[in-house]
């Protein structure tokens, strides 16, 4: 590799890493502020203007707090769990394209950590690995509430992962008809959402060609399952305080606890970004190349990406402020008896409709 390629790699990876850390600092504050507004109160106001530095203050406090390891803990697993929580959360985001491309000399730099041709499968694999953090943290604490919280969280995460996988299949199925063959690469999936629906009917000529329109059911199922997968209200049974104290991380304190907190918020941001990428056209948007200065139209894709991601993130918070927590049996039956059959039915439906459009009727 040449020096420029190393530089490009550094920009991509460090950019994604910095974006995630900065977004997490901001998102915790955004969430508290939005929740506060929805509940007619002020939220954090003290640290910095409008309390924007609240997360920094909280982080610093945790940094100087004692980190207690309970006597009964399995030391190795107990120390490994925070790593297993944070690392997959960051690796998910490496696959997501978060901006257009620009040139350093001759080399084209695409603002995406890695454009794997198995991108979607890689993301599913990483979110499976993140489950290990929960189950190991719960089990290795040697305490009853973390154990129960851990197995609950595991059962919840794996149940909704099936729904996530199934709803993504129909998106891939549809994407295959939009270009030359199917693909799991996220860059390619974004590219195929460019343009408008003008070829379907002139009336919808102004509607962007986003996957959300033909795959609306997959979008609803995916978003529901994503809320459950990230353990957010109303699916936050993992940390149901009344029953489980703090869930799987009850026995974690200080900076080790902060790591689980960081992983949770990185996951929410990654999931919002993934939703925006798959269903809302990712970084696509008008850039007015030529009429605007080059550096503005070069930065606009990232702006579109962030606007779409934060729209989804806002929905996450909105849901949390609106809906009360489900009971555990309701949670399991929603996942297995509604979302999975629903996703399977939608898969068959869109598979058949697309096949008729692609191949014509089999009898004619």
């Amino acid at each position: 590799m040449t020096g420029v390629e190393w530089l490009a790699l550094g920009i991509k990876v460090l950019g994604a890493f910095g974006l995630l850390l900065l977004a997490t600092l901001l998102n915790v504050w955004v969430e508290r502020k939005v929740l506060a507004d929805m509940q007619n109160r002020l939220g954090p106001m003290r640290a910095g203007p409008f309390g924007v530095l609240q997360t920094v203050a909280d982080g610093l406090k945790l940094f100087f707090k004692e980190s207690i390891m309970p006597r009964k803990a399995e030391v190795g697993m107990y120390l490994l769990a925070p790593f297993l929580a944070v690392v997959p959360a960051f690796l998910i985001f490496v696959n997501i394209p978060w901006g257009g491309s620009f040139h350093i000399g001759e080399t084209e730099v695409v603002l995406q950590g890695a454009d794997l041709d198995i991108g979607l499968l890689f993301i599913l694999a990483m979110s499976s690995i993140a489950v290990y953090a929960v189950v190991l943290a719960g089990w290795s604490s040697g305490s009853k509430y973390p154990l129960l919280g851990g197995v609950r969280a595991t059962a919840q995460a794996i149940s909704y992962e099936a729904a996530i996988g199934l709803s993504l299949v129909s998106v891939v199925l549809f994407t295959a008809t939009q270009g030359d063959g199917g693909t799991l690469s996220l860059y390619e999936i974004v590219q195929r959402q460019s343009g408008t629906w003008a070829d379907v009917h002139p009336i919808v000529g102004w509607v962007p060609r986003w996957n959300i329109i033909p795959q609306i059911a997959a979008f609803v199922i995916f978003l529901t399952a994503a809320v459950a997968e990230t353990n957010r209200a109303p699916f936050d049974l993992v940390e149901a305080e009344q029953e489980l104290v703090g869930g799987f991380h009850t026995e974690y304190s200080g900076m080790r606890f902060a790591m689980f907190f960081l992983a949770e918020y990185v996951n929410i941001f990654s999931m919002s970004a993934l939703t925006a990428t798959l269903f809302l056209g990712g970084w696509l948007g008008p850039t007015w190349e030529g009429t605007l200065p080059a550096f503005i139209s070069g930065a606009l894709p990232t702006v579109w990406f962030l606007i779409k991601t934060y729209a989804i993130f806002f929905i996450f918070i909105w849901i949390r402020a609106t809906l009360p927590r489900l009971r555990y049996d309701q949670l399991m039956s929603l996942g297995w008896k509604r979302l999975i059959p629903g996703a399977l039915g939608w898969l068959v439906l869109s598979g058949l409709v697309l096949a008729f459009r692609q191949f014509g009727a089999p009898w004619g």
Partner: protein
Amino acid sequence: MLTPVTLADYLPIAVMLVLAAGFVAVTLVASRLVRPDNPTPEKLAPYESGILPEHEPSQRFPVKFYLVAMLFVIFDVEIIFYFAYAVIWTDLGWYGVAAMLLFTFFVAETLAYVWKRGALDWNVHQRRRYIDREAA
């Protein structure tokens, strides 16, 4: 369409892995250097709302969770097959659609079976209905 895959494609993943793991390690070690570390027997006891735990925590949990894990393994493997189909289905024509419909029939049949057996019912009283039917 297919481009040769090289290990270099995965280099950013490896760099991010090292970066994220390094971040966690450095933060935890740095925190260890400045934070107090003063464990007492009371602090190290398993959490029990501040009172002394009477029993050692048991490492057992309801068998229902194993059932969910088994079902997950079955369905997740089936979903991976769908991904393979979704990528190449435009080349397979109606033959592929028919094969996939047959496969979906068996997936749906599995789901219907475990549903009817009560495996998807979380509460015992819901599951009870199946047991009673079986006995009658």
